[in-house]
Structures are given as structure tokens and as C-alpha cells.
């Protein structure tokens, strides 16, 4: 019997597979394709204290081996999540993590406090890295001081596992990771999307209503992998790796680079059941390489 259980600083996952916020809805969108209880957990759509309509259409453009999005945290607000969504999913035997975002420290705190009261939500992922909102979001994740401030304030308000999602749009991601650790984060997840853009040369207009958006998909994987490797060397808290994971081999690369768990994002859009295929692939890899415990491969590079 092989072990796939990973322990993220007290947050136990039955396997290292999570889904990236914004790519998996509230889980229920995928229940026709995936037995949600087979996952280590899933991270629900970015949630804010108040309802957000998000950015105008068009919000998406496919690029070479990737896609740009500018959704802009469209969601109905944390109270809607609490009253309408949470009752539908709370009894699932997996880790449901809420991605919390805000445009001010007060918003982050207020949203985290409400999620703190939900007994079947064992963790939040603090989103200080959304590139698609005018206020807040990435602004908190691109300076070590701002990251420290928001994480330490939320730390006081939130008693359970605090994962902090980092932006790759910085000069040195290890500085931000260390600031999050110093401020009391239990883990860090990286990377959020890379800020990018695309232009239609016939209309001579940008393809996104917001001009710039966040780039995801297989094109970002080598950079994401490098950043995970750097951060895993720089901090003592667990690292959750994401960025262009399309298959089990990609997931294993992230773990070898230092990720204790991984998140699958854009790949869910192409193969809604990809998380289960990746889980099966990890089992096959462990068998082939005589690995009894998945934790044994974490960070061996």
C-alpha cells in the first residue's frame, strides 16, 4: 500500500492534488466528471466580501499553448457563498478551500472572518496575486511590505490553515514568500497568472476588454516550476505548486522541485476529468519507481 497523504503544516490531504481557484467553480460544475471526494481538495472561485460583476466581455483569448483571462473575480460575495453554495458542498469528504480576495485589508479580514466560521472549510487561500482587478489583488502581492501587512492582519482574524497565493509578476518571488511566512502563513501557493496581453492585428484592438490579463496554461510551466524550486529553498513552510500542469508528469516535476502538493488549473477546461487522470498517473509513477510514500520525492532537486 503506497502513501499519497500529504500534510501541509497540519492540513491533511488524501493526495497532493488540488484544483486552482477560478478553474473549478464550486466543484459542483465538475461533479458529472469527477468524484470530488477522490481529490486532495479543491479551491473554490475567488471570493470577496461583496458581490463583484467582474470585467466586461471579452475576457478570454487563447494564445500559443496558453490562455489569457480577465474575469476580474466575478462572484456573488462571501455571504452568498455561505448561504447558498456551502450547504451544497460542506459534507463532501475532501478539503474545500476558499480563495479569499479583497481590495483593502479590511475586506480581506471581513471575508476571512466569515469563512473562519464555516466548520467544513479547513483553510483559506489568500489571493494577493489577482492581476485582473484595479484595486487590491496583485498590489498586495508585489511588495514584501504590503504582503506582510495583509497576511499578518488576516492571520489575527483567521484561526485555521492560511495559504497565501503568490504572484509571479515580481522581481524576486522568494522575498514575497518569506514575507508571507514571517507574517504567519501556514503555506504558500504559486504561481498565479502572468500578466500578459494579445492584440487582433485586423481590428488593431486588444483581444481583452481590459487590454491586459492573466496568462495561464502549459506555456507558463517552466517559469512556474523555476519559481516553485526557488521558493521551496527559501522558506520553511510547505509550498503548493501550480502553473500549467497538464498531466501527471508535470505534477511530479513540481513535486520534485519542492511542491508538497499541486493545483491543476487551466487543464480542467480542456479535460474536465484531468485531476483523476493525474491522480492515476501519480500512482503509476510511484509503482514504476518503487516509491512507497509520495512525500519522499518532494524537493529532491
Amino acid at each position: 500500500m503506497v502513501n499519497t497523504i500529504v500534510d501541509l503544516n497540519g492540513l491533511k490531504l488524501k493526495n497532493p492534488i488540488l484544483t486552482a481557484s477560478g478553474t473549478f467553480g464550486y466543484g459542483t460544475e465538475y461533479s458529472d466528471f469527477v468524484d470530488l471526494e477522490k481529490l486532495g481538495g479543491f479551491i473554490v472561485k475567488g471570493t470577496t466580501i461583496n458581490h463583484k460583476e467582474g470585467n466586461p466581455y471579452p475576457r478570454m483569448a487563447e494564445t500559443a499553448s496558453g490562455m489569457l483571462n480577465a474575469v476580474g473575480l466575478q462572484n456573488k460575495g462571501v455571504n452568498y457563498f455561505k448561504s447558498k453554495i456551502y450547504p451544497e458542498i460542506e459534507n463532501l469528504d475532501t478539503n474545500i478551500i476558499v480563495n479569499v480576495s479583497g481590495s483593502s485589508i479590511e475586506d480581506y479580514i471581513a471575508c476571512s472572518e466569515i469563512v473562519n466560521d464555516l466548520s467544513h472549510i479547513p483553510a483559506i487561500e489568500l489571493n494577493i496575486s489577482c492581476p485582473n482587478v484595479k484595486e487590491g489583488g496583485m498590489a498586495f502581492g508585489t511588495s514584501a511590505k504590503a504582503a506582510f501587512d495583509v497576511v499578518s492582519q488576516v492571520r489575527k482574524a483567521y484561526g485555521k490553515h492560511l495559504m497565501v497565493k503568490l504572484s509571479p509578476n515580481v522581481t524576486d518571488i522568494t522575498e514575497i514568500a518569506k514575507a508571507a511566512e514571517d507574517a504567519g502563513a501556514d503555506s504558500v501557493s504559486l504561481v498565479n497568472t502572468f500578466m500578459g496581453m494579445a492584440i487582433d492585428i485586423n481590428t488593431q484592438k486588444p483581444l481583452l476588454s481590459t487590454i491586459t490579463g492573466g496568462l495561464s496554461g502549459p506555456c507558463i510551466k517552466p517559469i512556474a516550476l523555476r519559481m516553485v524550486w526557488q521558493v521551496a529553498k527559501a522558506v520553511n513552510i510547505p509550498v503548493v505548486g501550480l502553473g500549467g500542469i497538464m498531466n501527471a508528469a508535470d505534477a511530479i516535476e513540481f513535486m520534485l522541485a519542492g511542491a508538497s502538493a499541486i493545483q491543476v488549473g487551466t487543464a480542467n477546461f480542456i479535460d474536465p476529468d484531468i485531476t483523476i487522470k493525474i491522480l492515476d498517473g501519480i500512482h503509476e509513477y510511484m509503482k514504476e519507481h518503487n516509491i512507497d510514500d509520495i512525500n519522499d520525492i518532494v524537493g529532491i532537486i
Partner: protein
Amino acid sequence: MKSIVDFTVKSNKELNSSTILLIVESKEELPRILPGQFVNVKIDNNSVLLRRPISIHDVDYKNRQISLYIKVLGKGTASLKELEAGDIVNILLPLGNSFDISLGKKPLLIGGGCGVAPLLYLAKVLFEDHNIKPTVLIGARSEEDILQVNEYKKYADLLISTEDGSLGEKGYPTNHTVWDNPEFDCIYCCGPEIMMKAIASKAKEINVPCEVSLENTMACGIGACLCCVQDTDKGHQCVCTDGPVFNINVLKW
């Protein structure tokens, strides 16, 4: 329930230089498919990442086949044009809502360009399941773009308009004489947005209920990515799950 199915290509026919009719067959029984629903097709080409949403042109439950009427526009659809009989194509289906059959008793179906695609299955369902013979108005640039005529005629009275007048009446579907003394009591429309907006305003003028099928750019097709949103009286709604069919009264056009 939505599922991911490996279909086998039965035939792939070029209807004109830029349009194909792709017929695919499933080993298993087809799920129930409503008129207006669509599929999301995986593209077997490394330079294409996302699936391509394609409306369902026809359904043959007996032979477990669906027909896809596809305008070849970019890399994704160009790859679909290369498919040959026997090839496997991975399809996510059935997706989206459907046309509201109870909108009226004398429907006018208006398709512009490739927007005619979902109207064949709608006409078939109206004719075979609801005992209604609809009128179908197809508008296109020219005679060579008016396709599948005999298929539509099986279930509907067919009207045609072409921009160059090479077939049917000359002009746009909005100029057709069918509007002169309207005998229809509801409209289902699919085509370029500019045409649908023009049809929508004509429908409002004469106070006839109207539904349109939208094709906003999408990634997942299942309501997760929130990329394909349309501005409605309920705010941003997903074309993939709240649509693709919308009553014009809810759209902020």
C-alpha cells in the same frame, strides 16, 4: 448529465470551400439532446489548447450520430476539417440550455451565415415532436453559402435571402418580405451579432417574442471559467450554461 465521449468520425464532407458537415458516431446511446444545445470538441493539434464549442446541427438517436455544421475559421476548425472517417474525436456534451419550444405556435427561424447550424435540429424537433411546421429563413452572402437546403425542407417551409441576390430575395434577412405581413408568432434566431441585434429590434417593434443563440468566446463550456459572459438583466451570465439561448428581453442590447 454531461459526459465526455470518444466519437468516431462517420463522414466529413466539404459543403463549400469554408464549411464542413462532420458526422460523428458514439458506441453508446446518445444522451437526450435539446435543440439549441452545443458540444465542446477537443482539437487534436498541439498548437490548439482549448476545445471548440460547436452547435448541434442534427441528432440521429437510432444510429447514435450527431451532425456538426462547421465554418472553418481558425486553427481549431481547420483541424476539424482534416478529420477522416474512422478518426476519434473527443466531445463534451450536451452543453447549454435550449430554445423554448413553447414560445409560439407559428415560429420563424432565422439563420445568418453559419448561424443556421442549430436551426435544423430545432426545425426537426418542432416538426417531429410538436407537430409544428416552422418557417426557416436562411440569409447568406451568396448562393454558394446556402447549404443543406433539402434537409431544412424536410421539416420547414424554406425562405432564402442572399446579399448579392444570387438565390432567393436580395438583401439581408431583416429586409425579407416575410416581415411585410408577419404570419409568425415567435422568432428563433442565430447568426452574426449585428444581424441578431437587428432582428431583435424588429421583433420588439412588432411585439413578437424572440430568442437568440449567442456564441461568446468560451474556455470550459460548463460554467466554471466565467469567460463567456453576456450582460443581462441579471448581470453577467455565462453563455455556456445560462445560454447559449437567451430571450431578447433579458439582454442588455
